């Protein structure tokens, strides 16, 4: 075991830290009047600034605009961004999921065409996997892609598309061979969202906002050259994306969650109940310490997973337990915050007396989605059962 960074990694971290210190924009507090579009435009400018300074795509190949560093530098980047309380970059899915998939499966032409514009936020990406009848059973996709000369003609209805409302491109999975077995007839194809026949409708979530959209594709013509990987091997490509999703997501999460933890601790120290700070209440101390312990365990388990991925090169199915861990932890943590804050915890953005601009009320509701998005806890447990523990497939 050796958890120290190399001198080069330390230098990378220190340079980045200094740059972030000089360049991170002042935070826009919750409750500030700002539309979803204005917010996104702001994040887009921020990503462009990072790109120009050479910080976007840390582990991506140099010839595609990346920095050519290792996954560990990428993790350092995510941690430092979170530590500096930097806004996230606009092109979340392009950077985290679709870009790495293109790097892995794309032709040289595809890499040169798509990757630089993902990094510069010139082209924003969304992902079209789920359908009304293909959620957890994502291989049950019914979207139709029919070959017509050198184009596929696509008819599809996709749901839960983050950034669908603003995306320029969509990484879409469609069924191109309806006669093949369920997992065999799928194709992963890159679709220009400005193509005729594409329609986007927002979905309002229980937390009030509309991060997600549903997408309709009606006779949309997409060049065969836009297929990523081979025709009818889209399942393999999509699976690679999903594993990437689980492997790197945790790195920034630990820092963000730690900040929330520190915020809650500060609240208990500054809030007097029954004549003394809440932080001196024995029950609350026990619960905060429990949350801290769980968060630390997640941090080191994530660290172990990253170290393993960086030596083997591929994320493994064991990433599923990290997904279960952070999502369930976050729900427990937000529940603890609600318990500590009592009725004040329910006050939303814009309300008198709202704590931290209503962040806790929003946070509590938003975390309900954590055990559903990016693969439900049940699906993750199935993956562990079958792929890690070697049980027969249960479905």
């Amino acid at each position, binding site marked *: 075991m050796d*958890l120290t960074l190399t001198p080069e990694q330390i230098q990378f971290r220190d340079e980045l830290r200094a740059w972030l210190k000089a360049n991170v924009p002042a935070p826009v507090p919750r409750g500030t009047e700002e539309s979803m579009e204005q917010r996104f435009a702001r994040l887009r400018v921020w990503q462009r600034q990072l790109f120009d300074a050479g910080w976007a795509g840390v582990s991506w190949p140099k010839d595609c605009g990346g920095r050519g560093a290792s996954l560990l530098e990428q993790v350092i980047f995510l941690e430092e961004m979170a530590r500096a309380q930097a806004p996230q970059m606009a092109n979340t899915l392009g950077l985290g999921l679709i870009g790495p998939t293109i790097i892995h499966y794309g032709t040289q032409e595809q890499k040169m065409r798509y990757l630089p514009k993902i990094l510069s936020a010139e082209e924003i990406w969304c992902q079209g996997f789920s359908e009304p009848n293909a959620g957890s059973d994502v291989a049950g996709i019914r979207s139709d892609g029919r070959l017509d000369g050198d184009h596929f003609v696509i008819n599809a209805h996709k749901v839960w598309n983050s950034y669908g409302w603003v995306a320029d491109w969509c990484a879409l999975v469609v069924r191109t061979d309806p006669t093949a077995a369920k997992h065999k007839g799928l194709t992963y194809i890159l679709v220009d969202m400005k193509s005729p026949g594409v329609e986007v409708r927002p979905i309002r979530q229980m937390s009030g906002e509309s991060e997600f959209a549903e997408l309709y594709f009606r006779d949309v013509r997409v060049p065969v050259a836009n297929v990523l990987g081979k025709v009818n091997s889209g399942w393999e490509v999509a699976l690679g994306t999903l594993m990437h999703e689980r492997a790197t997501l945790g790195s920034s999460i630990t820092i963000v969650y730690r900040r929330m933890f520190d915020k809650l601790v500060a609240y208990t120290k500054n809030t007097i109940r029954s004549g003394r700070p809440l*932080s001196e209440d024995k029950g609350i101390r026990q619960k*905060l310490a429990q949350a801290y*312990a769980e968060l630390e365990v997640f941090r080191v*388990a994530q660290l172990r997973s990253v170290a*393993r991925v960086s030596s083997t090169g591929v994320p493994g199915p064991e990433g599923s337990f990290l997904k279960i861990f952070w999502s369930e932890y976050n729900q427990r943590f937000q529940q603890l915050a609600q318990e500590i804050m009592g009725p004040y915890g329910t006050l939303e953005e814009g309300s008198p007396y709202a704590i931290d601009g209503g962040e806790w009320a929003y946070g509590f509701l938003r975390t309900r989605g954590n055990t559903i998005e990016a693969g439900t806890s049940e699906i993750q*447990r199935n993956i562990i*059962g079958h792929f890690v*523990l070697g049980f027969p497939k249960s479905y």
Partner: protein
Amino acid sequence: MRFELSETQQLLQKTARQFLTNECPMAEVRKRMETDNPHDAALHKKMAEQGWTGMIFPEEYGGMALGMVELAATFEQMGRVLLPGAFFSTVALAGSILDAAGNPEQKAKWLTPICEGTALATAALIEESPEWETATWSATAKASGSGYVLDGKKMFVTDAATADFIVAAVKLSGELALVVVPANAPGLSVRALRSYDLTRRVSEVSFQGVNVGADHLLAKGAAAEAALHHGLNVAVLALTAEMAGGMARALEITTEYAKTRKQFDTVIGKFQAVQHLCADMYLWTESSRAAVYYAAYALDKRLPEADAAISVAKVYAGDSYREVGNRGIQVHGGMGFTWENDMHLFYRRAKASESALGETAYHRERLARLVIDAV
């Protein structure tokens, strides 16, 4: 950066696993646990020949001077087989306190035989009110002639019945003092308690006018507090490593069973209800393992967060081992509730470990002081 064990560490781990699987099969553990004294002297001697009794101690006393990661890797294997007997109390508890508190003459006298495998030992710390704040302890040592006389009572002393000597924590002129007491000293009595962990015994140890020589005082005041603090960190680390190993083994046994037991014409491991119980066991096992090795690393490198890392591992492994035991028994169904099935042996060890060396609430409070009060 590398989280995995080095090749040498992996070799050590593999050797330990093979050795313990051969030398300490469950049939042997069961035979031992049914007796008054589960310690196996012949096995202890063999482990000493492997060098394990001196693993973390300096070479001048016969040790191997290895680090905390090696210690964790070895104890993890011991936890897998539920190794009964005094190895844990001798090496991880008494040995590590002695190493931190003793002067060279004292170490030559008491640590060398531990390394050689010729002496068994333990530490007598908490009392009838089982608190871990040293200020709450009331057993005393008083200067008497050229030495000291000890009075008081200690509780939940691990494997005291087999110990050749006991490191006792007492008050000397109001300060904490660590004193070595030979087990045959007149006035020392050991009364066995019947706890549900049959593979690790605990006793009450009483001192009634026990006389020891001046050279038996290892340390007092701040030096004693620091030595005990370090020794207990090492002991908790070893305990949590055992717990991680126990979890891993319980998970293996349970998945093996679920792959062979048939109901409704198929193996029960095909059912999601069963798979999800096992998936939880996997999550707790792997997470505990990460926490334990991180704590080992932090303690080894003396990182500022070492104390917190140790308590994090103890809190998390305590909850996890218990829940792994719960799920493991549940998956086994009626068989899991029988005496002949091994799951209850892991469950008993899990629960005993959860309350040993600071129950979960104690370690949570220790964390609260580190992460709430200190900021």
